[in-house]
């Protein structure tokens, strides 16, 4: 199972408000990041930071095991290529199964978060 204890912010970090990743959400986030195209590991963490306006700091300690697990599930595939920075890097691409999985997980998440919202809004 994905553990999120490594996501806590570093002490003295300038960005104070950071969300702890919910259990199980990292996979969905990675899949989402890769929906936009192949990325290497650092690229994924960077994009997630951008997309969440620096709210999600993906602990790299969680990132690589998650990547490996997703690859093992067959949702993403990996290959070595040259990065835009001009270095050899391992790039991760969403597979067809991964795409399906993303859509399924996204709708699940929406259901869940919508329900959460409803409950919290209730007076």
């Amino acid at each position, binding site marked *: 199972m994905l553990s999120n204890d490594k996501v806590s912010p570093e002490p003295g970090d300038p960005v104070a408000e950071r969300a702890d990743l919910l259990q199980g959400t990292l996979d969905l986030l990675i899949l989402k990041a890769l929906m936009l195209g192949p990325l*290497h*590991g*650092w690229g994924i963490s*960077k994009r997630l930071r951008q997309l969440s306006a620096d709210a999600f700091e993906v602990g790299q*300690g969680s990132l*690589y095991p998650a990547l490996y697990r997703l*690859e093992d599930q067959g949702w993403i595939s990996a290959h070595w290529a040259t990065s835009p920075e001009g*270095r050899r890097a391992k790039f991760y691409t969403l597979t067809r199964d991964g795409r399906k999985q993303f859509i399924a997980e996204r709708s699940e998440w929406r259901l869940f978060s919508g329900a959460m919202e409803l409950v919290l809004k209730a007076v």
Partner: protein
Amino acid sequence: MTHWLTRLARRFRALVHGAALDQELADEIQLHVRLETEDLIRTRGLDPMEARRQALLAFGGVERHRADQRDARGVRWIEESFGDFRFALRVLLKSPGYTIPAVLVLGLGIGATTAVFSGVHTVLGHLPYPKDEQLVRIFEQNSPTNRWTLSVTDFQAIAGQAHTLSAVGAVRGRSAPVSAGSEPQTTAVALVTSGFMHALGVRPALGRLIEPSDEPRGAPLVVVVSDGFARRSLGGADHALGRSIMIDGSAHTVIAVLPRGLDRLAGIRSDLWTNLQLDPPTRRGPFGLFVIGRMADGVSLETCRRDLAGVSLRLQGLWSDFPDRDARLTPYSLRTTMLGDTGRTLGLFGAAVLLVLLIAVANVASLTLVRATGRWRELSLRAALGATRVRLVRLVMVECVALAAAGAVLGLALGAGGLRLLVRIGPFIPRLEEARLDIQATLFAIVVALAAGMVVGAYPLLLLLRRDLDASHSGGDRTVGGGRRAQAVRGAFVIGEFALALPLLAVAALLLNSFLRLQRVDPGFAVEPVATPRVSLPAARYGDAAALRAFWNQMLPALGEIGGVTHVGLGDALPPNANQTNNQNNFDLIAHPVGDGRPQPVSSWITVARDYFAALGVPLLDGRAFTPGDTGSAPPVVVVSRAWASHYFPGEPVVGQQMIEGGCTECPRTTIVGVVGDVRYDGLTLPGEAIYAPMEEGNWGRTVHLFVRTRHTGTDALPAVRTTLLGFDPGVSVDQAEAMRDVFSESITQPRHLMTLLGGFAVAALVLAAVGIFGLLSYAVAARRREIGVRMALGADRRAVVRMIVGGGLWYAAVGATIGLAVALVGTRWLAESLFDVSPTDPATLLAATLALLGVALVACWLPARRAAATDPVRALRSET
């Protein structure tokens, strides 16, 4: 989804290319840190050193990270197990004082068990013939316990009428002089019909088998030889076909060589298989054919039995000379008949070896328990340093498995040797020599080893699972291994060992007692100074009784002339283990007829000539012995043994009584003319009921035993005997030129082997049990050194200390022995049939076994007790302060 396949492939790659993947991951991490560093420099304007520090911080521990990654690969547990295994081996090698005895004891136990398992597996397993469940042996049977061989009439009726059998074959065995261009030697020859090998499904390595065209009288004589014979006597299988072998004085052409290793067929051992040519029968008897058949596909034994019963009824209508209406042709599974009563012997072995194994495992378990004490601190420390309980349990388990694996390897090596030993020194068991340490035996050894390993590790594991490691950490050694509960468990092991050892010891003692009694049995004949060479005359020149009579009437007086020879006789049975089947006949007493259609009594029927009784030292008790006047032209006479006389004529005069021989109602009645002492022909355990008939009446055998009595050793005259016989006819074969003394000691080989083997198991059990109690007390003495020191300082004398230690140890032994005695009293009943003249619950023997066990226990207890008594109170008290 076939996705799992890819996943499996990836797992495999992860396992095999773990190092390459680690490198890939290292590269990936390195890149990540570098990109992060650059990004920090660019976006926040940090200096490179600080940026790198923060990047690394953000990343977390790189090593830790790698382990997580490996975990995600799903092979971490395998990698760790390898690590544990390596670690276990290292730990085991570092404490040879524990490992060597443990592996040795386990290996011995596993080896012995595996050897016996292979034997049992082979002997009780399938016969080496295709579809062996279809093979049957057919008997004549008239009561649940009385069955015998078939006659030519029976065989031909079955071959012609039994539709449930797809093939039928007959064998007649005999010993005959055989020569392949060298001096003739008496060899077992089997005469078979074509159906015999076809029924078995045997295929020759070379040539063709005996066919129906070889069966009519007058067809050329042919022989199928074993591979061994071809190599020994014909210069190899390639040179065998077409060669001529003189068998019984007639030339036989070799037509086939059997595959290597096939030196017995349907349990009959023979190197030569010739074509049996049967004459059309003139009456129902005589019997003597060994007949086997193959049931047609889909036929059950019951169907076959009904079919053959029908054949029996038709035969009774056709032939009136054999009046037994109860006799039925009855099929038995060939496998069952070949097995005989070996199931019991094997069961005995199996039980014995299992007991030894259990004692061995108990011993090692006890040893492991002691060791757990020393390990406890280490394990607690590991727990304190963060090892999870699962990890510790696995560590202990892997250690046990490593121990078991070493035991299995040693056990397999010992098992291979043990199997050879079993074949060599064990009692004869059909097919045992075929036993090999095959895949199944190997698997068996592995399973036994793993089970043993689990038992050995069970208690330490239980402690690990139940106890709080942290709590016991402070307590140190004493609280666990030396603790009361562990000692109690070890005590239970010791009690168990003694309870298991006693039945084994009892069995060995009973067999020893039985064997000693067997040796003292009066065989009924003088063992010295008699020699008993076997003489075979070739059938070609000695085809009828007249020729045989002429030979022996010339030779017997000539042999009597040899210097030193006092008596010479001939007999067709060699006591004390004569082959009973060839020397039996039925009879009907005129004074006590059995009545029409009832089975007649059967007795050993020995034909003898000249001074047989005098040469063997058999006393004449009543009437007369045979005289030269008892010939074929005189009325037939017999001499009976005392046991026979008191069985059939209790309290009545026997001499002068008459009988009808062999169901031959037209033959003249036979008169009993004398009574002689009992000779045990059917083994030393059976009474010597026998009827003797003179060879002079026409019952000359072509293969007989000479009984030569001399003034000195018996064998001193043998060279002259041989020269005399061969000088008269060089085609005569003389062999088995042994002294009666050797024949006699050979006859008790079987019980001696059984006794030796079980004695060996018993000694092993005894030693293991002694070692067990010795170890327990040694440990207790070491742990109680301080207490003993205090006692002695307070005035306890050395004898009191010895009494205390020995008494404590003997208590375990006595409890174990009591339980074992109860088991033995029930279990040895099983042994009854292997015992002679000893009750399976013979009190004296069981008492002796118990005392022997307790005596050994006493010694094993006394040694540590003496050490305890030698404790110097001052030093003992000082050492622990």
